[in-house]
């Protein structure tokens, strides 16, 4: 890169140089992202070939059902709503250097509390207020759920990977207990919560089936991105993430920030659960666990924790999973194939980044 070779540039010339470099940077980034995705599609295609499925037909079908058919694209965009909230929550945590791997537990608890509270609230108050209250409760419950790992990490230095993993197992079970014992709808035989009537759910966009939760999710992730990149608070979190000792040296209250990170992250993940229930599902069935948490982590990594890029990857993930579900029914390829594809993309991209880094290094030397 040109900026590395010039040893000194006078301060006035700084902006011009970096401006030119940025455009090349973006192009380079784009290439570094699309190249590996293509390579991953080829590798995954070989796996399809091996099990006797025509990869071109499969990819074509997935694209058609997930992207190009009117119904498919609507389903895809609807699916994005909870995933965007999840991605937003993970971006906050990962950028601050905290590995919140407890997404599923927080998601389900948010979902269950929203499912339990919304049908009650809509009878007590106007629908819009009821939904806001349900959202709030879901967020608060998820926040409280993250408090134990947060406190342990902030004041005892206990590794958050173990604690959030345990809390996610615990949360998944607790969500089930709540559905089966506490919030069970007495009117049904299968254990599930009371169903929120369709007319009380989040409105759909225009004449489509797309949930307006999509807009909320987009707003959430864009706000998170702006907060992380443009504000003092976001910068503080990034300092804690990039160099915790520098954070202490600079006088930042690291324990307080740690707790804030967990609260915001879990709160957003809880909202993801709520938006899925209040916008789409309407109730929570026992043993329901879409395991979005683990699936969104790769999208966030691939986006390098950039909010706008994450929107793109979440969209891609949604296309793949909606298209994959249709393909499962039609072509007999289980939608687990999506997992394989995502995994290969992640590995190839990490490899490409490594090679790129090495290449730059050797050129500089």
């Amino acid at each position, binding site marked *: 890169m040109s900026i590395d070779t010039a040893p000194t540039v006078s301060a*006035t010339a*700084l902006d011009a140089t970096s401006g030119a470099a940025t455009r090349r940077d973006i192009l380079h980034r784009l290439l570094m992202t699309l190249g590996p995705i293509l390579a991953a599609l080829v590798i995954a295609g070989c796996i399809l070939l091996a099990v006797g499925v025509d990869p071109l037909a499969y990819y074509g079908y997935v694209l058609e059902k997930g992207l190009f058919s009117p119904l498919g694209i609507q389903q895809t965009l609807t699916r994005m709503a909870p995933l965007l909230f999840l991605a937003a929550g993970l971006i906050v945590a990962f950028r601050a250097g905290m590995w919140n791997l407890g997404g599923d537990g927080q998601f389900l608890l948010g979902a269950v509390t929203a499912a339990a509270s919304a049908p009650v609230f809509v009878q007590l108050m106007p629908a819009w207020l009821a939904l806001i209250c349900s959202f709030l409760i879901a967020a608060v419950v998820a926040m409280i759920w993250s408090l134990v790992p947060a406190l342990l990490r902030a004041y005892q230095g206990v590794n958050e990977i173990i604690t959030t993993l345990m809390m996610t197992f615990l949360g998944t079970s607790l969500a089930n207990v709540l559905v089966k014992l506490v919030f069970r709808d007495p009117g049904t035989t299968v254990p599930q919560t009371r169903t929120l009537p369709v007319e009380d759910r989040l409105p759909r966009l225009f004449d489509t089936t797309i949930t307006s939760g999509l807009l909320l999710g987009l707003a959430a992730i864009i706000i998170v991105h702006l907060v992380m990149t443009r504000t*003092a608070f976001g910068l503080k979190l990034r300092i804690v993430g990039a160099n915790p000792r*520098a954070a202490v040296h600079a006088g930042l209250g690291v324990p307080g920030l740690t707790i804030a990170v967990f609260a915001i992250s879990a709160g957003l993940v809880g909202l993801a659960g709520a938006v899925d229930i209040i916008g789409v599902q309407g109730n929570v069935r026992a043993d329901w666990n879409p395991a979005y948490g683990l699936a969104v982590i790769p999208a966030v990594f691939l986006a390098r924790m950039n909010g706008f890029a994450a929107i793109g990857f979440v969209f891609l993930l949604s296309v793949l999973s909606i298209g994959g579900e249709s393909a499962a029914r039609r072509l007999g390829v289980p939608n687990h194939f999506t997992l394989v594809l995502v995994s290969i993309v992640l590995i190839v991209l990490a490899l490409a980044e490594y090679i790129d880094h090495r290449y730059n290094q050797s050129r500089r030397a």
Partner: protein
Amino acid sequence: MSSLSSSSVAARDIVALEGVTKRFPGIVANDSIDLSIRPGEVHVLLGENGAGKSTLIGMLSGLQQPDEGRILVDGKPTPITSPRHALALGIGTVFQHMMLVPTLTVAENLLLGGPWWQRPRTEELAARVAEITSTLGITVKLHAKISELSLGEQQQVEILRAMVRNSRLLILDESTSMLTPTGIDELGALMRRLVEQGLSIVFITHKLKEAAAFGDRISVLKLGRKVGEIPPERFRTLGEQEIISEIVELMFGQQKDDPEAVDRPIRTVRAEAAPLLQVADLAVAPTDNAPGLSSISFEIRPGEILGIAGIDGNGQKQLAEALAGQRVATGGSVRLEGTAIETLSVGERRQRGLRYLTDDRLGEGTVGTFPVSINFFLKQVGTAPFWRNGFEQRAEIDKRAAQLVREYDVRTPSLKTPVARLSGGNIQKVLLARELAEGAKVVIFNKPTYGLDLANTLASRQRIRDTAARGLAVLLISTDLEELLSICDRIAVIANGALVGTVENVDDARTKVGRLMIGLAA
């Protein structure tokens, strides 16, 4: 050795370097260096930080490979491919940063490296160690955990490790930086006994006195090149002062005087002025890996520079951190302009004008991946005019950063360059700019020239003098006595977390501080 029969002079070398060159991104660390290491000799490699000493050792110990030139072992060209290979060739290294596993015992550390399927041969080792230690006159606790040993003891373990492995060549990298003056003398005596047993020693240092006291042969490195060598024949005919002045000439060219010994400008510290910083009975509890502090008291007036001398690891960092508010004090008071600040947070102390320039520039001073511009304001996140209502004002930040870059002569490709890509000297300038910026009243410098090249060292020292000249109070913590003597008004000596005495920096200060450092009364 069969090489005795050979007539070639070079064949007498245990290890010889011929035209060895090593490049790293942006710098030539070693530039066609020739070096011959002979049995029964202490070969001193002398050079300031950044002269290429560490790289040279890296290549001798198999951690790095030369880009050009060759290394001869026993006269035969031998690429040293790995640390294991180096050990097999009989080259043992005692690194500057201790290379022992803190969670294992001394015995286990000594045994590290044996065939993996074997049971560690503890009894065999104990016998071998007893044999070696008795001839060397040192004692080693085999069953103590490394983390329980002092740095000096750890160093002995490392030397012992090289001996256990039958090393013929022992490389000691900056081994005295962690030792007390007595420890340094003991090490010198130990090295003498080792070479008498026929070993070769490469002793790396940047201290002229040690080089003159311990060496048989001295090679001087400067900016990656070998600029001169004093062979043993000459060495023996010269007195210590003559050797030193010859080395100075080699290191710094024509000028005969030590360039570091700039005449201290006579400043008038107004004795009647009220102290800016008053510290009384400051105490800090010891932790697992750091000594505590006990009843530290001192005062600094405007325009005054108080130096803190002492061997590294005697509580210097703890003192700086306790003053800055990063470390909890268990007692005592700290007053800035007469107001107590000991209960205030790091940020509040800074706001009142107490600044701390850390010695760990990349570890805690900066965020390496963040741009230079942001690193200027790391301690002001959220304050106007750089942030308004919590939002970053990029134009303001860049404007001020560009100003600071000019003012402090930070050599950076751009304001957006990650700060870790800059050289140590330029990172230090970023820190200086940050800490000395508007509102500073008391500045704590912790080892401000550690690891810098000569030009940056001199520039940093001038910054410190200028700072005091502006009427600020300066606390200068340094392990470099020459530095303290060339800058400070008074020098306090710290040992085991307590100030053992304070000396006015006048003619006999060097002796007095030296006496305090080895535990005698000034």
